[in-house]
């Protein structure tokens, strides 16, 4: 095989690779685009022949219909509130425990740490029924705190925080602070916290997006439309008589757009949160 033949062969291969990746990207993007098109069209557009592939002019009208069915803004706010509080609480619990596991010596440390890792394998459905009755017994059924409380439990957070703190907070710094008479909590607050802020961003994204997208628990706990989170509210859109696809996808569209914008702005952070969460 001479040089030019080889060169031609490899450039054909390159083109093929680009074509393959372009098709993959198109398949990834198309449902989003189609969601947008449907959100701007009457319900009947979904089955027109040939298929409707350009946006129409009902973007606002369809969204008004969404507002007739669900309290969209209330639901978005509820989700935002739940996820924000959950994230703050989990970051606090995880960094405290991660700090203790990374830098303290106490009896049974390894056993406790292993126990935390073991709790990760319990499938969430196993406790679902008692959790439901527990929440209802303490009067938290149909409330946002009732939704939140389950998400406070996050063993992965402790694991990540321990890894990060033992890798990035120097022992000498802690020893020096101790000699200066700092309490452990003061060390946590003024030395450890500033150092682990980047890890907070990673873990924060993991926790926030997991709580945002979770469905089974929110669907089980919330019955009152005023308390619906966005996932539960969206799921109601298809539970109506005379299903209106334009309306359904309008709701999905407006609930998804904020996420897409946040993701496109911080995509590197999002993507590294996945690898940090599973690879290390």
């Amino acid at each position, binding site marked *: 095989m001479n040089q030019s033949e080889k060169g031609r062969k490899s450039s054909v291969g390159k083109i093929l690779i680009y074509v*393959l*990746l372009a098709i993959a990207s198109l398949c990834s993007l198309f449902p989003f685009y189609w969601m947008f098109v449907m959100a701007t069209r009457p319900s009947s557009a979904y089955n027109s022949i040939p298929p409707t592939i350009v946006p129409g002019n009902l973007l606002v009208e369809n969204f008004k219909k969404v507002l007739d069915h669900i309290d969209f803004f209330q639901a978005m706010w509820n989700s935002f509130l739940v996820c924000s509080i959950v994230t703050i609480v989990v970051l606090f619990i995880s960094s405290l425990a991660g700090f203790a596991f990374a830098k303290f010596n106490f009896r049974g440390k390894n056993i*406790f740490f292993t126990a935390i890792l073991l709790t990760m394998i319990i499938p969430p459905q*196993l406790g679902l029924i008692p959790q439901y009755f527990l929440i209802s017994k303490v009067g938290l059924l149909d409330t946002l705190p009732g939704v939140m409380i389950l998400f406070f439990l996050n063993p992965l957070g402790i694991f990540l925080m321990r890894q990060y703190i033992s890798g990035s907070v120097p022992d000498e710094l802690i020893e020096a602070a101790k000699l200066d008479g700092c309490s452990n909590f003061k060390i946590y607050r003024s030395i450890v916290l500033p150092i682990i802020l980047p890890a907070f961003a990673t873990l924060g994204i993991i926790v926030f997006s997991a709580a945002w997208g979770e*469905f089974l628990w929110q669907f089980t706990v919330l019955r009152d439309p005023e308390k619906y989170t966005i996932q539960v509210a969206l799921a109601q859109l*298809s539970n109506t008589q005379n299903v209106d696809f334009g309306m359904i996808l309008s709701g999905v569209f407006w609930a998804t757009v904020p996420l897409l914008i946040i993701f496109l702005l911080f995509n590197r952070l999002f993507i590294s949160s*996945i690898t940090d969460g599973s690879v290390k």
Partner: protein
Amino acid sequence: MISGYLYIAPFFIIFAVIGLYPVLFSIFLGFQKWNGLSPMTFVGFANFKIVLTDPLFWKSVYNTIVIGLMGTAPQLVFGIIFAYLLNLAFLKLKNFFRVTIFLPYITSMVAVALIFSVLFSDHESSLANYVLSLAGLDPVNWSSSEWGTKIAISIMVFWRWVGYNTIIYLAGIQSIPNDLYEAATIDGANKFQQLLHITMPMLKPFIVLTVFTSTVGALQLFSEPTVFLGNSAFTRDEAMTIVMYLYRDAFKLQSFGTASATAIILLVLITAFAAINTFLTSGMGRKRGGNK
């Protein structure tokens, strides 16, 4: 010394109340007959017998496994291919491809299920059926036929998760030291041999990880079929998964004993499948190569 316990205490207190207690109570409840209101009665293994002899339960196990296989196994194959391509040195627009392939993952499962319920609606000229008609095929009832529902849900699961696995494999590939490839090139190994003998073996821990998480995730499938099927989610059996069966027993039929028994059986199934799949994957390639 004391603050060590103090700092890890919040997790364990919360775990005791909403983690451990519910799990133990579930196991207890698995042996009781209870409708949530009247007093419980101990029934021994009767709940397990009811569940294990219920054809609908076995249908749900079958559905879960079929959708799990169709929805997740191809993901791992495509994930590796995409990750390999995205790591090629000459590739331009890397970040664009990476972001677009990952994009579906950030949408919630409910949103994905609603989008796909319109793409794959039953109407004979819905978009999915239109595409079939271009290939000369008959329309499919995507929300009410045995295979239609399973295929639509599998495609949806594939679409949402393939980017996630790609990112993990990509991180894996990028962690492989470059000198391994350089040495192989000097020894005259071509790109395909390098893929087979360097990339794949080095990627094995990442493959084991994704097989484990995919297996566990597949057996817990709930949101996608529930939202995709909407009103008929708990009345039809074509796509009823194990967790949907559990949910239906508990919150539609108020049979909390059998639902808890189902939860325990699910735990056993998850443990068994995860162990088997992880074992098979970590044994993969051992005979052939002699790599660690």
